[in-house]
């Protein structure tokens, strides 16, 4: 099947006070129709910037896409002009965000905000748009949609607002939905509702989803493929079953081990040491080297490429042919990294 979206070697850098920060540094992945890709990483990994870069929503002039292409249905979104990309936004590709509280405009009714997309892209009249908006609210499971459509965001609960966001995003039947941490700000019971809803809609509408999250549980339950990001790089990329069966990158392994499990209890967690460094602190070598338990001299010198192991890609020297593991001196006992801050 043809790829719906292809991101190739995307680089988005930020410039502040003359300093350059590589927030997204050569990210590539692809997404097919109806497929869900989970983009996983901790804060600062560049996953949100990646999603924003796709639609050129990076805040200028601080952030800039400096390289790479984003091919959507054969067209490079990066090269599109302001007018052209606007026709894609909300129509072919739409987004939902982490904070349903702040992502809706507080001074307009939810109906108004949904109708806006429809009048903009589908050329519907206000009346038609309103009918459709109510319909969409019903689709996302909002009770008494006829009344809700005239309410303001603050009159709705967090879960409802996220439903409204989804309704808005799906109003024009987009081919791709980018969901940036859609459930992080929600309570668990509400999160369950929203995840359920998204899965349901995905089946029904055959929308491809780029799901950005830090929660491996969410990925496992919703995604078909997983990409793990660390400091602007994809470090592991595979389908979801393979990934959870046998995570290959030490970072992925660490992540999974860090999370206390609800099912099996261990007496002591086994965390990754240290903190995520600031991108500027990593001068050369593997970006994870400072926290890796199996670090070797080569890791500090050169950065590994994404190595393809039968479709399971991983960015680690361990899987290269010339990997020689010497007696590992872990400093696992010391939880504090002197690299600090």
């Amino acid at each position, binding site marked *: 099947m043809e790829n719906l979206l292809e991101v190739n070697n995307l680089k988005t850098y930020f410039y502040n006070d003359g300093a350059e920060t590589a927030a997204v540094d050569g990210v590539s992945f692809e997404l097919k129709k109806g497929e869900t890709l989970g983009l996983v990483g901790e804060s600062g990994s560049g996953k949100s910037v990646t999603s*924003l870069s796709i*639609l050129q*929503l990076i805040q200028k*002039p601080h952030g800039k896409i400096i390289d790479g292409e984003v091919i959507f249905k054969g067209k490079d979104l990066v090269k599109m002009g*302001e007018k052209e990309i*606007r*026709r*894609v*936004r*909300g*129509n072919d590709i*739409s*987004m939902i*965000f982490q*904070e349903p509280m*702040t*992502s*809706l*405009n*507080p*001074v*307009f009714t939810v109906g108004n905000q949904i109708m*806006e*997309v429809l009048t*903009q*892209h589908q050329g519907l009249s206000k009346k038609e748009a309103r009918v459709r908006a109510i319909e969409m609210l019903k689709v996302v499971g909002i009770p008494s949609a006829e009344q809700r459509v005239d309410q*303001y965001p*603050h009159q709705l609960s967090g879960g409802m607002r996220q439903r409204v*966001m989804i309704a*808005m995003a799906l109003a024009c039947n987009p081919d791709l939905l980018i969901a940036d941490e859609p459930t992080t700000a929600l309570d668990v019971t509400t999160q369950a509702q929203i995840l359920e809803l998204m899965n349901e809609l995905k089946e029904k509408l055959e929308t491809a989803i780029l799901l950005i999250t830090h929660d491996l549980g969410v990925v496992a339950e919703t995604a078909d493929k997983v990409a793990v990001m660390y400091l602007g790089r994809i470090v592991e990329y595979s389908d979801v079953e393979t990934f959870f069966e046998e995570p290959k990158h030490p970072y992925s392994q660490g992540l999974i081990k860090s999370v206390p499990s609800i099912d099996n209890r261990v007496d002591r967690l086994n965390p990754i040491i240290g903190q995520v460094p600031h991108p500027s602190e990593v001068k050369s070598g593997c970006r994870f080297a400072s926290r890796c338990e199996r670090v070797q001299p080569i890791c500090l010198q050169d950065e590994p490429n994404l190595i393809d192991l039968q479709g399971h890609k991983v960015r680690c020297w361990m899987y290269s042919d010339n990997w020689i593991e010497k007696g590992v001196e872990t400093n696992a006992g010391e939880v504090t990294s002197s690299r600090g801050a």
Partner: protein
Amino acid sequence: MKKYLIKRLLQSIPILIGITIMTFAIMQLSPGNPMQTMIDPKISSEEMQRAQENLGLNDPLPVQYFTWIKEVFTGNLGYTVKTGQPVGQLILERLPATLLLTGTAFVMAFVVGIPLGVYSATNRFKAPDYVLTVLSFIGISIPSFFFGLGMIFIFALKLGWMPTSGMVTIGADLTGFAKFMDYVKHVTMPSIVLALPTIAVVMRFTRSSMLEVLNQDFIRTADSKGLSKLKVNLKHALRNALIPVITIFGLSIPFLFGGAYITEHIFNWPGMGSLGIQSIVAREYPVIMALNLFTSILVMTGNLLADVMYAWADPRIRY
């Protein structure tokens, strides 16, 4: 909404009482009284003292306060010491002129300030923003009397485009549109002088409010929906940015009324400000007190109005 209004009105009662007490107290601290500006060798000091006595200037303070409050309730607000005119009437005569001036300045401040602020914010880091920023600083920094005199000098005296002062062309009994235009001509310069700092403040405030809103998540949402930049800026951003600007409504009112003192004085505008200056010179306590009271009530009302508008403009505020 009604409940909210009533609540706010009730809350303003203690403030009103405070205003009257403060107004009264300020006057009481003052040395000298209007009788003393009329010192005249021909009038015996006994006669002066008797007049003073008759005016109640020698009564105990609480008595004077309540006498005054009674006058406030009758609407007379007392009588001028020298001419015995009801002060309320005097102020009412001047009120329309002041409202015309401050009202025009007020409208000007927002009608000019808001678009400039929006323009500045949406052109951040570009030349127009810098130019407007510097201009707004100058607007805040220029003393109004200086600016006013300069305007008179240039536009009235040198160029002869504008009348030097006053509110109407005296002696010309104009009607209808001609009368309206006559007002427009006369109100232009003083209202610009009065409005300038407020324009600058409104502009700065709108700008920063816009910038703040432009950083909000829902703007990103609007962008992601594929709306045009103009629609994002004018519908989503401006509407939200204007809500805090409403507070400037309230804040600018005392500023404009204060500024009206000097502006009216310079432009000989027949409003409450020039009355105030006259009265201060003449130590007309009842007038000064009434003006203080009147202005502060206007300001309070303005603030009240701003609060109500705020509540009205922001659907998040419930009553």
